[in-house]
């Protein structure tokens, strides 16, 4: 049993379980799944700076912060406690492309250390991948009114066409970065 839990879970187990989070949150407390809002709540709690968009009663949304804290604990449980293979079994084609195009050599871990180790903040890679990347995620999700959870899963589950527009945007941006900007960076 533990060995099964240790191995990566296939999409047909993980996907439906992620989908069930939507009704679980609705049934427990009439809450809509959405994670990027937590970033706004933290800003409102810590640095509101009289900005109208950050001046609201964030405490009434505290559930969202507990949910996010839980996600962190879940990551700890899944990776450190249960354990996980050191290398993510991506397709051989992806490995080949990343070696050839980006010069990556170390394929261990959840993210490439050659790009995401904090000591990379001493060179351009850390600033692009960690700082610019994170900034675009925080800026873009709030501008779009949601992220993969709020728009793609929660929104599309409720047949919101606005969410479909957002998801098309997510993919357009991702494809643009992968196919146009990555080749320029490396």
């Amino acid at each position, binding site marked *: 049993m533990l060995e099964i839990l240790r191995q990566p879970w296939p999409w047909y187990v993980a996907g439906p379980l992620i989908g069930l989070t939507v009704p679980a949150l609705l049934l427990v407390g009439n809450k809509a799944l959405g994670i990027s809002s937590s970033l706004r709540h933290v800003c409102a709690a810590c640095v509101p700076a009289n900005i109208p968009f950050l001046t609201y009663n964030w405490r009434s949304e505290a559930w969202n912060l507990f949910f996010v804290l839980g996600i962190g604990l879940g990551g700890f449980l899944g990776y450190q406690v249960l354990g996980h293979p050191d290398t993510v079994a991506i397709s051989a084609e992806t490995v080949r492309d990343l070696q050839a195009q980006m010069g990556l050599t170390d394929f261990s871990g959840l993210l490439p250390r050659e790009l995401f180790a904090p000591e990379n903040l001493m060179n351009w890679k850390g600033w692009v991948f960690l700082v610019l990347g994170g900034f675009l995620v925080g800026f873009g999700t709030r501008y779009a009114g949601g992220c993969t959870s709020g728009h793609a899963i929660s929104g599309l589950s409720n047949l919101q066409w606005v969410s479909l527009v*957002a998801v098309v945007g997510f993919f357009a941006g991702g494809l643009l970065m992968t196919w146009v900007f990555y080749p320029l960076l490396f």
Partner: protein
Amino acid sequence: MKNLTYLVLGGLFGLILTKSEVVSWWRIQEMFRFQSFHMYGVIGSAILVGLVSVQLIKRNRLKSLNGETITLADKKYNHGTWIGGTVFGLGWALTGACPGPMFAQLGSGVAGAAVLILAALAGTWTYSALREKLPH
């Protein structure tokens, strides 16, 4: 007490994201290069199960445990939907993480995730400050 329930639900959510490797930069790259079905399977089946559940909840006018009739607000369109969506997509391909996975990565022991979260907070704060000047 109530918040403890959300902590547990978040814990399960984070566990699933981690064990299915949705929190991995490698998986996101594989997805944007169309070289595996994994991510499409995860997202697609999640939406399908979510869709069926939400429709069942709405048709049966179910109440939540705290006695409220369950309602899902309609999302309103503005130009930020696609502009912001594209901006997020650029960041998603760089970091390989949406907001949820960043927290799971930090919990799993990826030190760089702390930088990602701080940068994402800076991004959200900057949007909030510039909001009235941006096209919507």
